[in-house]
């Protein structure tokens, strides 16, 4: 028996641990450090139709137990991602979740249609929640009707299951979750970053060139955990949880709150070996909890 195996729509995960989108590029850099086949899955960097060069620098700033980023969805564009990055990733026995972004609804549909045909893309993650791009993105994620419509449009063209990535910057996350479920989403990933800001104390000006950035890291874990807990009450599709996950204990907490798998973002920057380390230590933690299989954790806070 594989104690860590988790089955999700489109995804047969050998373990529930995967790097979060934007914190792992397209895997090449981490592949120099360890074998990517140990990962449950890989969420690749957001892909847009066109090449994007992103925001001006500085793009990151440190905060208490967290960081801000405003990368601006820099990526080589749909064509190159499919022809180069995804093909390169085929050497690993790891399902890819392609993070889809854009400005207009048509952009999302175009990326979803093309990228979902790639052999190793087993699911899409629709990024309706990036706080760092001026138009599109964030608004899709804050209006339930628009979120549902976008989900349905992507779902209509995608050849693989569709997960929608929710923004935490909303009044009622449960409402958005229900909307995307109604729109046909196969799963939810959450949370994207909280909008935040850091100022240079001397000048009074924002440290990040973009002004605001997205807050991630251990600081946001309590917010993320509560949102996963909340959404788990409202939908019956699975959740991939994230937000500050750094240790095995964090994984246990997110799954207890209702996540079926988890993603690790910022922690990769603190320790590039964090994903394999968590995967290695997960079984001992299950022993400590007296639990046979990781899936027994899912939603136990609610029971």
């Amino acid at each position, binding site marked *: 028996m594989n104690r860590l195996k988790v089955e999700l729509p489109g995804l047969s995960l050998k373990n529930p641990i995967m790097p979060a989108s934007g914190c792992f590029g397209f895997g090449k850099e*981490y592949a120099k450090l360890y074998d990517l086949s140990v990962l449950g899955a890989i969420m690749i*960097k957001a892909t847009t139709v066109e090449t994007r060069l992103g925001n001006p620098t500085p793009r*990151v700033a*440190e905060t208490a*137990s967290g960081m801000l980023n405003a990368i601006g969805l*820099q990526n080589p564009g749909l064509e190159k991602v499919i022809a180069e990055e995804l093909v390169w990733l085929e050497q690993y026995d790891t399902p890819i979740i392609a993070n889809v972004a854009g400005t207009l609804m048509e952009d999302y549909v175009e990326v979803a249609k093309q990228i979902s045909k790639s052999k190793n893309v087993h699911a899409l993650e629709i990024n309706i929640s990036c706080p760092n791009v001026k138009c599109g993105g964030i608004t899709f994620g804050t209006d339930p009707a628009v979120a549902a419509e976008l989900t349905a449009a992507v779902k209509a063209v995608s050849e693989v299951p569709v997960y929608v990535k929710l923004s935490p910057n909303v009044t009622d996350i449960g409402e958005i979750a229900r909307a995307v479920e109604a729109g046909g989403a196969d799963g939810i990933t959450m949370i994207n970053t909280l909008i935040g800001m850091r100022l240079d104390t001397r000048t009074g000006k924002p440290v990040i060139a973009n002004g605001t950035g997205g807050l991630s890291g251990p600081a946001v874990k309590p917010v993320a955990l509560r949102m996963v807990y909340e959404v788990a009450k409202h939908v019956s599709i699975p959740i991939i949880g994230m937000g500050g996950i750094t240790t095995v204990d964090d994984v246990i907490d997110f799954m207890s709150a209702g996540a079926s798998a988890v993603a690790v973002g910022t922690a990769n920057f603190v320790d590039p070996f964090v994903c394999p380390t968590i995967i290695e230590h997960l079984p001992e933690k299950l022993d400590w909890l007296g639990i046979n299989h990781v899936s027994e954790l899912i939603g136990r806070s609610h029971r």
Partner: protein
Amino acid sequence: MIRKERMKVIEQNEIARNIYELTLSGQLVEEMKGAGQFVHIRVSDSYEPLLRRPISIASINHELEQFTMIYRAEGRGTSLLSIKKPGEEVDVLGPLGNGFPVHEAKKGDTVILVGGGIGVPPLYELSKRLVENGVKPIHVLGFQSHDVVFYEEKFSELGDTHIVTVDGSQGHLGFVTSVLAELQQDFSMYFTCGPLPMLEALQNMYPKKKGFLSFEERMGCGIGACFACVCKTTEQCSVDYVKVCSDGPVFPAGVVHI
């Protein structure tokens, strides 16, 4: 290969005002190839401060499996680093990036090394290597004032060394460029690390010379995955952008759009 290791503090000294020289030991030193690479340091096991700090490798001692870095204790992370005592451990990720191409300079060449402030440290290992290869380095090192000058003697042992301070409290008064203007101009190439305005001035001053510039940018991952540290490139470059952490920090003159 990039490794992560809890390295041991061998020695730490304040060598100028708020400037610390820290020597660490560990197997990771085996991987250090050349001058101009850097390490990414986690200063504590707490989540605050969270991110690693990029610090250049100032000198490498493969025999002892030790390396030295020189840094300014300024913000939260470097201040915490500066109180580490011999025997304590420091979490190091490295070596990272591509350093100075030492072999571009041929035996008998004269080259110029220009450093500004905490951009001076990586030039030390570079200079040692150049001298080993029979190259003659001339050092022009700029600082704010006399109390933050360091390694004057060490550089002097390797070649001509000109110290410049903004307030004239040690060496020449002014900027590195004023000293450079008075120097012999028959050098084959220049290597430089320091604040952006200095890099820009150098590039403009020697449009025809071969030059290698080391850049700084705020970093996330330090290994090329997060796109935090990108720089736009100039038109003559074939790619749209470069990453300071993995493509750099050293680039040939003319690559990075300053």
